[in-house]
């Protein structure tokens, strides 16, 4: 059985952003603003997560006035579980063993967490 791949820092940032409000649909620019990721990084991540069925995507219903319809994203049940698990592991790994190469926004606290 293949070993499940570890998530990159950027992927974890996106998952953390989506996991804050798991039931809410988010759009790309919103996620980019929150995570600090550029579009060329964010969208490939969303594609990979959607391929692995951790994120579901759909187009906005109806035609909003003055702007094109947006593509919306949220975590699936599996995606939320994976996000919680990955973020928990991330918090446990000693920082001294790691070498950060790029600055990304810190993941926000997950929905339902009190402390």
């Amino acid at each position, binding site marked *: *059985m*293949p*070993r499940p791949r*570890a*998530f*990159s*820092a950027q*992927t*974890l*940032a996106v998952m953390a952003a989506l996991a804050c409000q798991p039931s809410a649909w988010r*759009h*790309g*620019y919103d996620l*980019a603003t929150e995570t600090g990721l*550029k*579009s*060329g*990084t*964010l*969208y*490939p991540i*969303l*594609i990979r997560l959607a391929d692995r069925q951790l994120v579901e*995507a759909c*187009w906005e219903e109806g035609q909003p006035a003055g*702007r*094109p*319809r*947006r*593509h919306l994203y949220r975590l699936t049940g599996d995606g939320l579980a994976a996000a919680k698990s990955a*973020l928990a*592991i*991330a*918090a*446990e*790994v*000693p*920082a*001294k*063993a*790691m*070498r*950060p*190469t790029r*600055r*990304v*926004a*810190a*993941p926000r606290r997950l929905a339902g967490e009190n402390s």
Partner: protein
Amino acid sequence: MERALVVLLRTAARMLPPARRQWAEALQAEAGQVPAGRTRVHWLAGGLWLVAREGSVTRKVAYWLGIGAVAAAAAWTVWVSWRTVSAADGEITTDRVRILVGLVALIVLPWAGRKRGWFGPVGSGAAARAFRVVGCAAVCGLGVALIRIDSHAGNNGIGYGAFNWMREVGGLTLFGAVLAMPPVLKARWPQLEASTLWSLAGLAGVVVWAIMPVQLLTIGYFAAILAATSRRSPVTGTSLVAGTVTGLATGLIIFGLAAISGDIGLTVVYPVVASIFALAIPAGIASAWRLGETDNSKEGRETRIRQGLLAGTVSGAVCSLLLTYAFIGFGLMMVFGPMIGVVGGAVGGAIAADHPRNSPRQGSWAAGLFFIARDGQTS
């Protein structure tokens, strides 16, 4: 600038597979919400990067440039063969015909095997693409080496002598018969075992090899390179890389041995055989280890040995090709090198199966990054 990028993105998005196109459209739909100016330009530029990445544009461009390089190498080989006058080399007509036959094989093989996928399309990995391009160019280069050697040898009676239509046409006909033999025999006598078919084809192949070794080796190497790098090939990217690295290393070691002994002739055959065998082992180990999670079942063991064997074959073939460049007498090694590599690679695969690599550590470097980022915000 923004308008130009929007148009460019819309056009470029058509290069994406249909399933991926909506993502480029999504990015484009968001562009209106992004503040105008530099931010929006960056956003749209990211879209172009997305298209290049998801459409594997860079890889495709690099591959087709490589195909162009192979075509140039093939054209150069033909040009060199035509430039050489027959006064300087009595075998030049034979060389020209053989080079043209090799060229035809390079074009016809991918075409002939396209439906069943034996020889194409190329695998999606960078290793497969690079190996296909560099390997085919190297075999073309062998033609140039052959012509140069023949030119230097002059009309001294060494080699195959003047052109002989009967030999060339007869050899090619026999070669075609060898290729057609297994499917025809299988269709006529379905109960025949595969081993019998391959044995018969192998025997006929030996006869063809005796008649026209250069063509058989050229066509065989082209076919092997195309088959090993096709999408349905069982040879993994790791096996290609490990085999190439160890094959090149073996070749360099043999050059070193030859330099020390002052002879690159056949007196170094035993060290050559030993080196190919020895360095095929790490290739086999590396490729078998990279197969993923440890599986102690019989099938898992066989899979590892098979992959090690393939990596060893690649190693032996690469080394033999390199040696043949240096000394045409080593052309024989183009047959025996892969065979020796098979044994070494199988040994490596078996070692890897018996000594499974420890599981990689859990977690990732990303974890630490978040730890740092989180601490940075809370402090």
